[in-house]
């Protein structure tokens, strides 16, 4: 981890020095933003840690906790909303026993996220499972996909 962080800090100094890009790259490397990383950058670059936390809590894209192995992103943009996204989300929550506060399963196998519009509104409702876009989703189909993924990760 140390090495990766060193490299990111070096890039930061050599380039324009943009905190958002630095955090984006950190997240790309670790899947989330570890607290150690923030303190490391803070020391190394002499920037108060509060600025990193300020930025990372402002933007929806940053995660301060590790995420599940499978990422399910449900669109809750307007087009998906009027075509029943809420039902999909509630169904997936039930299937994965997730609550509003906790969106990653205890075994860290699944994370359920919501975004506002992925830009595929004409095939609403849309769900993205591990970066693959599924259009015209139904609660049934989504449950099936989750079951398949669960089986795969048990093997």
């Amino acid at each position: 981890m140390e090495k990766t962080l060193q490299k990111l800090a070096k890039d930061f100094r050599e380039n324009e020095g943009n905190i958002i890009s630095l955090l984006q790259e950190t997240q790309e490397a670790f899947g989330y933003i570890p607290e150690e990383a923030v303190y490391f950058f803070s020391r190394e670059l002499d920037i108060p840690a509060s600025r990193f936390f300020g930025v990372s809590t402002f933007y929806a894209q940053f995660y301060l906790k590790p995420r599940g192995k499978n990422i399910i992103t449900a669109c809750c943009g307007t087009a998906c909303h009027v075509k029943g996204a809420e039902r999909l989300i509630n169904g997936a929550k039930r299937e994965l026993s997730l609550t509003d506060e906790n969106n990653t399963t205890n075994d860290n196998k699944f994370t359920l996220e919501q975004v506002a519009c992925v830009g595929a509104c004409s095939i609403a409702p849309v769900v993205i499972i591990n970066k693959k876009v599924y259009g015209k989703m139904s609660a049934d189909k989504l449950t099936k996909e989750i079951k398949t993924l669960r089986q795969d990760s048990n093997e």
Partner: protein
Amino acid sequence: MNNLEIKVCMGTGGIAAGGTDVLSAFDSALKERSIPAELQMGCSMHKVGCRGLCAKDVLVDVLIDDSRTTYQYIKPEMVQRIVDEHIVGGNPVSEWLVKEDYHNFHEKQIKVVLSDCGNIDPEDINSYISVGGYKATEKVFATMKPEDVIAEIKKSGLRGRGGAGFPTGVKWEACRGVQPNLQMGQKYIICNADEGDPGAFMDRAVIEGNPHAVIEGMVIGAYAIGASKGYVYIRAEYPLAVERLKLAIAAARERRFIGKNILDSGFDFDIKIKLGAGAFVCGEETALIASIEGQRGMPRAKPPFPVYQGLWGKPTVINNVETLANIPYIIVKGADWFSSYGTEKSKGTKVFALTGKVKNTGLIEVPMGITLKEIIYDIGGGIENDKKLKAVQTGGPSGGCITPDMLDINVDYESLAKVGSIVGSGGMIVLDEDDCMVNVAKYFLSFTQAESCGKCVPCRIGTKRLLEILNRITKGKGKEDDIELLLKLGSDVKSASLCGLGQTAPNPVLSTIKYFREEYEAHLQGKCPAKVCRDLLTYSIIEEFCKGCGACLRACPAGAITGEKKQPHKIAPEICVKCGACFDVCKFKAVGRE
């Protein structure tokens, strides 16, 4: 046959429907030995961007010596038959061809920005050049002074497509006019590809389908204002668009349409991509600037406007993707051609994302001033399942709704503003009798409330209070004077907020109250007329329809349903969580909802 071309729609929609597999199915089917060699030689295959009607994906064009046949709903396993019967045999597979609705969908549209989308290969710069791409850049550098460019754009009447509709030429002129010595030389142009309106995808489709037009627009804009650096601020939720834009920028640099000494003109300009990090407010220009600078994306008060003090305090022009993509077409075909479309004050065409309960959902480009009726019924093909139209929502979370009795309204900046809605960035969502307007208002407000950056009090606290009131109304706990309170608070938030987010956030609420007050009143009486608001519904089983199949019993997450096989089941109201799972699974319409 000398020339065979296959075009597979591969925007986000096309890929989701399996476009990649269809393309490779064509590839392997055409490489079969049984296919005549000269056919294989003359064949080319292309991915193309969105052509609007994603609901019919995967769409495939087969062009034989330039005569075009279009297929819809193509799956990989259907490809072999198309190759055998159509390409080799010469007889198109008639039952898979696009039908009348596909042609109707396109007939009333006029495509400027989208004219090459869905036709050219967005990952190949030659494909863009072959349809006249970069002619505008060449023309500008060979024959026009920056002032000429500005004059031409002003004359065209082009107005910003990002929402506010500010005249683009005027903005450029203001930025050009800032004295360079005062500002240490540097100016910037930023392409706003944040596309925050949830339910709109015009900018995504333009970048995915024709990224070079946006780059060209930026180069020309940069030349006009004297900027040497450009940024594209794009949502990270659009990975395919980012990928294609990256490819396009690299290809344009290689051909010297951007970079140092562009086309030997002595003018330098380069473009960088900045990924957004998921904040709607960053679509607002001052917040966007803060975000590019690496800070929390919070807007600041204007003036000073970005054209005077923008990125890093330097003069900066910010334009929307669609605005910029119009530029090359205006330069090549002329301001008069462009302004021959549209109305007196709204020139040209506008791209809309037509979604919701219409038959043909998709991306459309229409001349400004077309009537809403033409959009919904001629292009959109009418309401899905022949239900009744209830409202059309435009402008997303900043906009309002239009009711069926106003369908003859002209769609342009002024006319929509008059009825309390806006053109906005181009989201157009059709709602039918099954949609609850209070729920729709609550939906938009929960979006703006969550996205409020928190800097100014009216927006931060005002949207929260508005949402609380809407929440209690949809839960059947509304108070008598809640509607008045919404109106009062809404207008206060509008007038006191710092940026466009707060200034427009109450619009969906105010406009639904204006036109659908009776729905609000019904909720206060404890009824949701459209049967959407969960807390106001009760579920029960209609015994005479229930076959006792047990599907609802298995689907119920709360264990509220009991019953023997082949006997009518029962729902225990005190256990029921009103999730609607039983209603969804029942094949016999035996679950009632009141």
